[in-house]
């Protein structure tokens, strides 16, 4: 698979497009790619990234530079070959009969862009609730009806995106929630949804080795024992997750 383009769209966030007809055809929103980034300072493991978007035979990931692997990723230029396993994992299950509420926190927008695109293509009218710390952290996303919130009020409503969600759930009876973002945001989202009886799917992260369910390394505590983020997830029904676990990836 080769890089088509790779650009920083924020000082610490890049988007890379690859060309791969096979991947583009198979990919479903919520799934991820397991990437090998060469020369990442003796870091040997692959890195998982949600599929951010698919257009034609091109497939994108949106990445935040947090360490050696993502730094090496940001250095890839057009034409560079990339070793990818995927698409992997359980995708979002779109519930066509329910008005979709899509909740993103920060870089959590990554998998939701693709989800929004597919929902729109199916004639659904998703509403995006997008929360960020501040204006400059907002990332580009599809033009759908949306409410932006920033913790500091520098753009859109001031406050947490979960506060916006609490309001929206009331306004959209029978809605289904699809969420990705930091753990506290997801926990609160799950709590709200459970309280209001709204189905809720979340995309979770965990450190991964194999990415295919072979190593049990990416365990996430579920209500009925451990689940693997790569094989049982990364998208989970929020009710199957133990939201009280201390999480540190």
């Amino acid at each position, binding site marked *: 698979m080769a890089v088509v383009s790779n650009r920083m769209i924020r000082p610490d966030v890049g988007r890379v497009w690859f060309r791969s007809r096979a991947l583009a055809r198979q990919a479903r929103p919520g799934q991820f790619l397991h990437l*090998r980034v060469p020369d990442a*300072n*003796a*870091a*040997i*493991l*692959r890195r998982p990234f949600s599929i951010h978007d698919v257009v034609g035979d091109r497939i994108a990931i949106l990445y935040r530079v947090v360490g050696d692997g993502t730094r090496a990723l940001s250095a890839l230029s057009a034409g560079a070959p990339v*070793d990818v*396993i995927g698409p992997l994992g359980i995708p979002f299950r779109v519930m066509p009969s329910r008005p979709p509420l899509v909740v993103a926190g920060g870089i959590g927008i990554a998998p939701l862009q693709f989800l929004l695109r597919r929902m729109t293509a199916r004639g659904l009218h998703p509403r995006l609730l997008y929360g960020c710390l501040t204006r400059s952290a907002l990332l580009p996303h599809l033009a759908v009806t949306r409410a932006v919130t920033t913790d500091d009020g520098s753009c859109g409503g001031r406050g947490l995106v979960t506060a916006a969600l609490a309001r929206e759930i009331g306004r959209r009876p029978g809605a289904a929630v699809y969420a990705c973002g930091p753990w506290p945001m997801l926990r609160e989202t799950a709590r709200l949804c459970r309280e209001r009886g709204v189905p809720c799917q979340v995309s979770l992260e*965990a*450190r*991964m*080795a*194999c*990415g*295919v*369910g*072979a*190593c*049990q*390394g*990416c*365990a*996430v*505590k579920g209500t009925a*024992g*451990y689940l693997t983020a790569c*094989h049982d997830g990364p998208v989970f029904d929020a009710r199957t997750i133990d939201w009280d*676990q201390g*999480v*540190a*990836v």
Partner: protein
Amino acid sequence: MAARRDAIDLSVSFAGLRLKNPVIAASGTFGYGTEYRGLAAAFGAIVTKTVTAAPRAGNAPPRLCETRSGMLNSIGLANVGIEAFLRDKLPALAGCGTVVIANIAGNDVAEYGALARRLDDAPGVAAIEVNISCPNVKQGGAAFGADPAAAAAVTRAVKRATALPVIVKLSPNVSDIAPVARAVAAAGADALSLINTLFGMRIDIERRRPSLGNVTGGLSGPAIMPVALYHVHRACRAVGIPVIGLGGIATAADAVEFMLAGAAAVQIGTATFVDPAAVRSVARGIAGYCRRQGLSRAAEITGGLRC
């Protein structure tokens, strides 16, 4: 050219097993053999994830952490337990295209024996690998592997319980692996495999907490390869039974080093995470090495070290 390529015989035979090539999938890195779809057939054999008598949930996350040229894991032998293994996992391996070795661990000697007995007539199991070297569990695990007498007791119990070939997997966390290797061989093991992971630890300095939920873990990957080779070299000199070498093998050259030191076959674990196709490049590269060295069979590499 094509003729010469065909001429290399990659198969190896030892301990009553015949493998089409000397590259085996290491326990715990290849699940129950079906997770990497279609890949099992590329291996000379696969070793399934350690099974225990009762199912085990495993340790608290995070269970993985990267290190330079290596990784730490503290999975804690998470597995479905022997009954679900026999019922659900083993049948799924029928027709997987390669030799299946089942790996077991018990809390005590008797449990090792019981597990072996349960596997003895299980269809499709060609051999048993006995894990006495897991660094991530309180009972059993590496404690058995560090004590020659305990290691021998486990070996005897397993040998009494099964007619299958028994491979005992040793721990590198010892000052000298030779006494353990000798004790296990004397107790009747058909082969040894080594090494399991090295004790290791990392700390998340910003949070001031261990990087692993279980505090410590097992180190694997290219970083440990020289340590593994050292122990394999010593074990091969200590015993007459076949030795399977593993620990950090990522390339064909690595595999050849283990075979030259005396290994009859090799296993790859972490390398499969990095590149699921590693088994193919390692097997191909072993053939290439034979060609360069004028050998017609991979088995001729074994023990070829001059020192």
